[in-house]
């Protein structure tokens, strides 16, 4: 009997899967979706460095692992520094193995930012990916520096009172050969950016929005829709920057021309249920400021 199953492979990426089925990820988890595409884009000669985050859990329990590339789990603050050592070691052996640090927002914008800044400044030959679910997801959704204002978390039960940290401008200040933002809802764009990053020698950085159904309080089936809405409103801006050459990605260009209503994005998620009018104003102000700065930069103003 002929096998009529068809394997659908996204154009430009590998048919090989590097994450086995049935991980312990939550239903609708976009961080594992992101990693799936990252690894397909990177290929088998890759080592993943993972600090404490959801990804340290979804590998499974010793002696098993759900990943079929080497994964080096490390302490929370240490991902970028461990990756520095690994990159130097591979260089000393003449190996071109990809070193990818894959860390959550807590491990990046909060506890890991010193090590990350150091590794970027030292021009470490690696790719650092921050998958951003805007809270400490692994420990049950506590506030991080990346949590947006107004969002309810377990440590901000009345909604966060501080703004989301502008990680990307901190990273951009290091003037990298390559940095990019992406979103789990746009896998082709994401995969292309990973491939481009890995083709460049030196420090590379990607910041990828990772909607989280239990944390953001929406139905698991809506993960792609929520991610798309974040981009369509203009709240999550996607672009690439090679040193000071900025290229705004297609979906964000469209959002700059005709943005979806910001309220539609908030309405999709339970975490914003107590959002106050002035907080919406703050978010809108921050978003408009970000898009204005990106537009000015892209136009060379």
């Amino acid at each position, binding site marked *: 009997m002929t096998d009529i199953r068809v394997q659908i492979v996204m154009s430009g990426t590998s048919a090989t899967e590097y994450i086995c089925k049935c991980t312990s990820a939550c239903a609708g988890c976009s961080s594992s979706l992101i990693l799936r595409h990252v690894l397909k884009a990177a290929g*088998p*000669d*890759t*080592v993943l*460095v993972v600090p404490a985050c959801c990804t*340290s*859990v979804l*590998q*499974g*329990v*010793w*002696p*098993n*692992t759900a*990943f*079929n*590339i*080497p*994964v*080096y*789990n*490390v*302490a929370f*603050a*240490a991902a*970028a*520094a*461990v*990756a*520095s*050592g*690994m*990159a*130097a*070691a*591979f*260089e*000393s*052996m003449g190996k071109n*193995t990809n070193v990818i640090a894959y860390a959550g927002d807590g491990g990046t914008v909060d506890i890991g930012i*010193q*090590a990350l*800044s*150091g*590794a970027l*400044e*030292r021009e470490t030959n690696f790719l650092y990916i921050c998958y951003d679910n805007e809270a400490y997801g692994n420990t049950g959704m506590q506030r991080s520096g990346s949590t947006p204002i107004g969002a309810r978390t377990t440590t901000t039960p009345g909604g966060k009172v501080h703004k989301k940290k502008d990680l990307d401008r901190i990273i951009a200040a290091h003037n990298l050969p390559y940095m990019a933002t992406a979103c789990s809802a746009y896998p082709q764009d994401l995969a292309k950016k990973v491939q481009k990053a890995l083709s460049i020698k030196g420090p590379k950085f990607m910041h990828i929005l990772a909607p989280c159904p239990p944390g953001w309080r929406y139905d698991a089936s809506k993960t792609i829709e929520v991610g798309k809405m974040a981009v369509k409103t203009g709240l999550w801006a996607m672009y690439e920057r090679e040193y000071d050459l900025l290229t705004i990605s297609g979906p964000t260009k469209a959002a700059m021309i005709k943005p979806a209503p910001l309220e539609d994005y908030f309405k999709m998620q339970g975490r914003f249920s107590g959002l106050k009018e002035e907080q919406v104003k703050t978010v809108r102000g921050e978003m408009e400021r970000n898009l204005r700065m990106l537009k000015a930069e892209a136009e060379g103003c």
Partner: protein
Amino acid sequence: MLTISTGNNAVAAAVRQAIPAVVAAYPITPQTEIVEQIANYVTNGSLKSKYIPVESEHSAMAACIGASITGIRTFTATSSHGLLYMHEMVNWAAGARLPIVMANVNRALGPGWNVWAEHTDSLQARDTGWLQVYVATVQEAYDATIMAFRIAEDRRVYLPVMINLDGFSLSHITQQLEESEIGDFIPPLMLDHAIDTKAPAGYGCMTPSTDYFRIRYDIERSMRDSVAVIRETEDAFATKFGRKYSWTENYRCEDAEVLVLSMGTLGKEAEVAVDILRDEGVKAGAMRVRWIRPFPELDLGDRELVVIDRNYSFGFGGILASSIRAKTGRQCYNVIAGIGGQEVTYNDIAGFIRNRRIGEETWFGVDA
């Protein structure tokens, strides 16, 4: 080659012989000279290492961990607050079974700021799974550093090794140094669990309570196995280079009726104190404890014991004295001396021995 050197430069010279592929380090007084000298070697091409000038000690140990797991030789150096700042990764290095070698220049902890010798920094790391040796001369700093690589990288050990030298009273003093071409004394590193993208594995993943303790026990098993490896290494070193080391350095101990035990440079002062007491007709001997992990079997006999601790565990006592009591059941006279670089002369040590009150503890300069 016979030369003169500081303790710090002796460590750097030994590292140049061992040729680690990666050195990641962060400067701190009084260790700074070690990393400066290594940076000089790398810059002038006399040491073919990658030198990673990290932004913190936490990252220094993290970078060594990342480098070491690829199967290459690594080295770092720190002191005091630097060691405390990297403490999380110090534990990680041992748990990950990585043969990292680190020199720690012993220094007191703040506040107040004090850059002088004390052993409380490294002794706080005694439960991490690192092997720890304490040295007392420039030559010993050099020799112990070379041996540390061979011991750490032995398949029976695969644990990191820390060489401890007293801040300023050894790091910055100048003595004669015989630099040896080590040849094949340190065999090439073969790390069985090195990362290999052709044989992917998960490292340090979630480990359930049904298995975790087995992995921890394995650290202890290797710590016990390291006893034979240390002995073999020190014997091989003596055969090749003519300089003999052991668990302790014993001075006039054979017929001694009272022993003064200590660690680091105070052990050398104690030898002079013993000579003074011998001239007075007191049968004293000095025993300098070199290895604190694994803790050695001490040949104490039934002699009276005076233990000098240049460290303290608040609410309990001097750490060397406590360890000796716990291991041997023997009482001692515990003198807490040399804290934060407090001057302790051989005459002071002779006084400790003369005025010993077995079973008691004294803080030198406080109670007296």
